[in-house]
């Protein structure tokens, strides 16, 4: 993180309209994605991972959501406030995204060729023939066998793994600088998960793009990411290099996550689960949002919500110093 970051998210706060007024989905999310970065974002369902990703391209429905605070800085503009026309140029060309469910991510009435060509025609003004040729190359690149024939097929003919490859081909069509992969392997079975991760890793190296992988699966994150952001209840609770996070987590929530992973040599005892559940976004909690579930809670935790503090150049954690594990032991 020496050079200027590719994308810089500052104090991002997103709210959604509900029957009871505006509910805060994520609050004060700040992080940078460097050029060629390999970032993992991990958290439970509802922790705000996807909301963060969608906000980076301003994809929330207008009217029912709002950006209360913050900025997403990319190439000298704030994507939260840039005109829609500028955003359309950035989407797909500079920042691309892959979704969780490959079964519903492809338009059933268009052929694979049409769908990959769409991005190419939109951003690079390619002709149909040129786009078709490029689509075949891209299918080759994501290792779809017999690409020249597959390119004219319709999505229903492809398996889940194949569709996810097509999604990735669409996403990298314009050689984006950042690929956001939102739970790209969750809907796939385990062997294919590994292949898709391997593919993403290879493509990242080949194309020199940054990848931001969102997952609730620590195994996937450990295998893929170099740096990990842990989210809890709409806030970043820890941000650290992957080996540091897995070997010496500093936030009790991260610790809990690590403890709840099944160990290979662990035998058959019950898996550890963090007690309690993720709080409702509207639930009033004094101080730290993780407080009610925290084993190390102190009165000071309830007095004021802790800030996300840098404890060294690459490690940030949102926890009161005294409740940190290192101080506990």
């Amino acid at each position, binding site marked *: 993180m020496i050079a200027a970051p590719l994308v810089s998210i500052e104090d991002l706060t997103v709210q959604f309209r509900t029957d009871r007024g505006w509910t805060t989905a994520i609050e004060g999310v700040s992080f940078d994605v460097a050029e060629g970065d390999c970032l993992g974002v991990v958290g439970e369902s509802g922790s705000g991972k996807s909301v963060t990703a969608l906000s980076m391209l301003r994809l929330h*429905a207008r009217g029912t959501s709002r950006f209360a605070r913050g900025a997403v800085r990319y190439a000298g503009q704030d994507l939260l406030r840039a005109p829609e026309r500028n955003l*359309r*140029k950035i*989407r*797909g060309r500079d920042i691309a995204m892959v979704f*969780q469910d490959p079964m519903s991510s*492809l*338009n059933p009435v268009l052929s694979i060729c049409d769908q990959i060509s769409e991005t190419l025609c939109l951003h690079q003004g390619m002709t149909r023939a040129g786009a078709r040729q490029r689509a075949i190359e891209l299918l080759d690149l994501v290792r779809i066998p017999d690409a020249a024939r597959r390119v004219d097929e319709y999505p229903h003919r492809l398996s889940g*793994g194949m569709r996810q490859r097509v999604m990735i081909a669409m996403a990298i069509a314009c050689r984006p600088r950042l690929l956001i992969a939102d739970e790209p392997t969750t809907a796939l079975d385990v062997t294919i998960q590994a292949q898709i991760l391997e593919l993403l890793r290879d493509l990242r190296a080949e194309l020199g793009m940054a990848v931001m992988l969102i997952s609730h699966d620590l195994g996937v994150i450990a295998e893929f990411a170099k740096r990990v952001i842990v989210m809890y209840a709409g806030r970043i609770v820890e941000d650290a290099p992957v080996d540091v996070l897995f070997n010496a987590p500093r936030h009790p929530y991260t610790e809990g996550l690590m403890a709840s992973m099944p160990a290979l040599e662990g035998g058959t005892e019950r898996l550890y689960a963090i007690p309690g559940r993720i709080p409702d976004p509207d639930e009033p909690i004094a101080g730290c949002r993780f407080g009610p579930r925290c084993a190390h809670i102190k009165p000071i935790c309830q007095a004021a919500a802790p800030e996300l503090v840098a404890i060294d150049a690459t490690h940030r954690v949102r926890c009161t110093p005294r409740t940190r594990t290192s101080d506990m032991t």
Partner: protein
Amino acid sequence: MTELALDSGQAAVSPVLAPRRRFMALRRLVAHRSFQIGLCLVLVLAVAAIFAPFITGIDPSAMKVRLRFKPPSETFLFGSDSFGRDVLTRVLYGARVSLWIGLVVAMLSGLCGALIGVLAAQFRSLDALLMRLMDALMSFPAILLALGITAALGPRMESVIIALTVAYVPAGARIVRASALVVRELDYVQAARIAGASDLRIMLRHILPNSVSPLLVHMTFVFAYSILAEAALSFLGVGVQPPTPSWGNIIAEGRDYATEAWWVMLFPGLGISLAALGLNLLGDGLRDVLDPRLKAG
């Protein structure tokens, strides 16, 4: 790479086992019993209408006053009417008018309905305005609305078409809006937005093609309803005006002599019934094939 091996294995056999989806739908449609019957009925009527001049060779307005009210015979297969005109010829020419009106109304109201429905689904700010307008139109019985519009525009074929189109647009718009609201939330629409597609492009290329199949079914029914409604309007005297024959006005003209010359009303009536039956069967078949809920697997 087990998956790759499996997948290429599938690729080798699949062209034989699974033809492309659009052809599969077509094949299922062709195999559908009620669709077959419906299609035959509609085709027979359409062919009769299109080739009317070659089938009879008689002018539908040619009067032979001395041969009034002749019952069906060799000279007049369907009998003759109060002016001595050949009822068969008039029914055939009437089919041209009635089927044409039905077809055009189905197409126009389908087109407008699709546009309004997709617009309402895509631009949520337009939704309330457009849909309340549709609700307002829907609050009148279709035939009453059409009656009012034809009365205002003057009794011509064009006014019948406009009137029925206006009357049938709201239902189509609602159908398309309902399915477009579902489609717009699907991942591939979001994916298109992420790829940098504009609202218009998303609407026309991604949402519309995926929301029109229920409309297609609805359009076949609108086709049938329009034939019935045209008959009703012409019967009431605000539709297609004599001497141009339409199924409705032939029945209207035959009404006064219904007891002595039943054939004048019977044959155009049969035409209406068969067209409505055929189109409904056709629509049923389409619905069975296109409705994902009725699909097995």
